[in-house]
């Protein structure tokens, strides 16, 4: 059989190969590891990470970065919970308001970045402080969400057999991934993000809508961060102002492991999906191992990360040589 390998796809294939390799390793090492349930759990437990990672992929491909995502998740979650719990707002309305505000939050950051030419690193760092601060202002305490509609959403799911169950949050993750792939490959917006990230100057001269695309990218990511906040609050049925501290780094790590270059201009949503699953897999590994102390947990995460990246590089090099 002659596999038609496009040079561009080799890193992506290498990433998938790495994922399969570790999955296999886990299945050999631990009983119960190789089950549909553990696999589906990857999607359920990482749904909120994945949703943002898709947005972050666009941001990073466009040559930017967004550090605010973790805080926006917390803000959206706590705001939605507050609206439902204290003011009796209907969940659907509360969630919609949060999504709108999230998009607006992203849009404002995008505008600051575009119109005043401020570095994304700084603007989104400020966004991170601001969103977290606002979350504290909304409520210092965690707020439980108890609403029949929410419970219905949480309980909704598709049984997959083998004791596995695909809940709404995981479906949102998968849907966002599909939308991401579509946007990236089949819309001008998606293609323009590549152009801007690869060479903003060229993109301007080629007459592409640079400003609009840039602002849209951050708006989209803000929206997805808020959506992740909704997913997170469904996942935990509460809003918590301290939720997801440091999530931005996990998300960026997932995107980069998925093969996206931080310098912009190249990467794939599909790669990001694998990146998210790989990070999730590392955690699954560690819980299945189950005897690591807190510090060894951190060290092992670092070592696994290192090993995966080396493996991925090695595989893509080997692939390219053929």
């Amino acid at each position, binding site marked *: 059989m002659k596999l038609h390998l496009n040079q561009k796809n080799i890193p992506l294939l290498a990433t998938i190969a790495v994922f399969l390799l570790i999955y296999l390793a886990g299945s050999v090492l631990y009983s119960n590891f190789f089950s549909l349930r553990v696999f589906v759990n990857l999607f359920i437990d990482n749904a909120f990470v994945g949703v943002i990672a898709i947005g972050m992929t666009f941001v990073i491909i466009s040559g930017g970065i967004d*550090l605010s995502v973790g805080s926006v998740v917390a803000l959206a979650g706590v705001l939605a919970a507050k609206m439902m719990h204290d003011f009796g707002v209907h969940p659907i309305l509360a969630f919609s308001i949060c999504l709108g505000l999230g998009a607006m939050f992203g849009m404002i950051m995008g505008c*600051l970045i575009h*119109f*005043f*030419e*401020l*570095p994304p*690193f*700084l*603007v989104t*760092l*400020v*966004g991170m*402080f*601001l969103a*977290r*601060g*606002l979350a*504290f*202002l909304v409520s*210092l305490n965690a707020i439980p969400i108890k609403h029949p509609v929410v419970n219905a959403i949480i309980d909704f799911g598709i049984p997959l057999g083998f004791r596995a169950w695909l809940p709404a949050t995981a479906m949102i993750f998968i849907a966002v991934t599909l939308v991401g792939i579509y946007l990236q490959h089949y819309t001008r917006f998606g293609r323009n993000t590549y152009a801007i990230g690869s060479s903003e100057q060229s993109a301007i001269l080629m007459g592409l809508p640079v400003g609009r695309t840039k602002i849209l990218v951050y708006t989209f990511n803000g929206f997805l961060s808020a959506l992740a906040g909704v997913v997170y609050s469904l996942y935990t049925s509460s809003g918590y102002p301290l939720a997801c501290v440091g999530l931005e*780094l996990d998300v*960026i*790590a997932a995107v*980069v*492991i998925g093969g996206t*270059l*931080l*310098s912009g201009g190249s990467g794939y949503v599909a790669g990001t999906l694998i990146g998210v699953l790989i990070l999730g897999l590392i955690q699954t590994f560690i819980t299945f191992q189950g005897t690591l102390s*807190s*510090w*060894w*947990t*951190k*060290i*092992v*995460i*670092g*070592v696994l*990360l*290192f090993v995966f*990246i*080396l493996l991925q*590089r090695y595989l893509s090099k080997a692939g390219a040589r053929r």
Partner: protein
Amino acid sequence: MSQVQWLRSENFQRMLWPLMALVGILLFNFFFTPGFFHIEIKDGRFFGSLVDIANRAAPVMLLAIGMTLVFATGGVDLSVGAVMAISGAIAATVIRPDYVKGVLEYGEVQSLFLVLSIPLFFSLLAGLWNGLLVAVIGIQPIIATLILMVAGRGIAQLITQGQIVVFIHEPFQYIGSGFLFGLPFPIILVLLTFTVTYLLTRRTGLGLFIEAIGANSIASRFMGIRERMITLSVYIFSGFCAGLAGLIVCADIKAADANNAGLFLELDAIAAVIIGGTMWGGRFTVFGSIVGTLIIQSLTTTILTRGVAPEVTLVFKAFVIILVALIQSEKFRQLFSNRMAGEKVRTS
């Protein structure tokens, strides 16, 4: 260069706005916080809020100095906080090797040289590791240093077994809370590091090479600049700065807190570097980063002394930083000077 030329030069322009922002925050305090500018000399030592700010900012200033160079090469070093923790943990363990095993007695008093050199050696090693991943293996900086950011804190906790190792070691404590020439010793250390860095980068070819690599690494390689060597050294240097910062913090509180030392300080350092006017991959100014750190620290101190409620702190901080950033943005300034400029064109 003549003075006038210097005032017009790009280097000065880049520092001007951060300096203005710093002056602005200090002026605010001058009017609204009584005794803010008061500096008194007690036993030949300077005391006062300004000295405090500089002293508190010292660890982040050190991080920012290292981060500036890393940033200029187009990288970032997320591991500095973890390296701080490692360095402090090692120092404390050198002083009380058996503390974590539950032995409370001190062994023989360790020489200051050992207490300093062993942690710094490992900090260099940490920097070398980052550098190797970035420059030799070619892993993207943010991920390469994220590995050490996660694992490094684990290593620090492994060393202290998660405990807070307290110690008494007069000469070492001097690093954190001593005075020299009337100034807190950390400030002296920062001045020293800054001077050395400044001389190394601006009085040799190094600074230019770093900027060239950051701005266009292919062209730099074609010109025979040792791109890898320099990138490697820059990460090593950042590791060293982080190690030094770790020692200061650890000596200051007379304890090694591997769980919290340097936690999230990488973000402060990055913010300081950007506010200070350094570009990601290109021009850098170490002095600007010092100013950037001072801006952030005076803001923090202002918040603490003025009694802003802790839950509002972050919002407040965010607004001030974005304001500082906007003042620096040429586009933003144009917005306000547009009317004037418009008239100028019409009359000319």
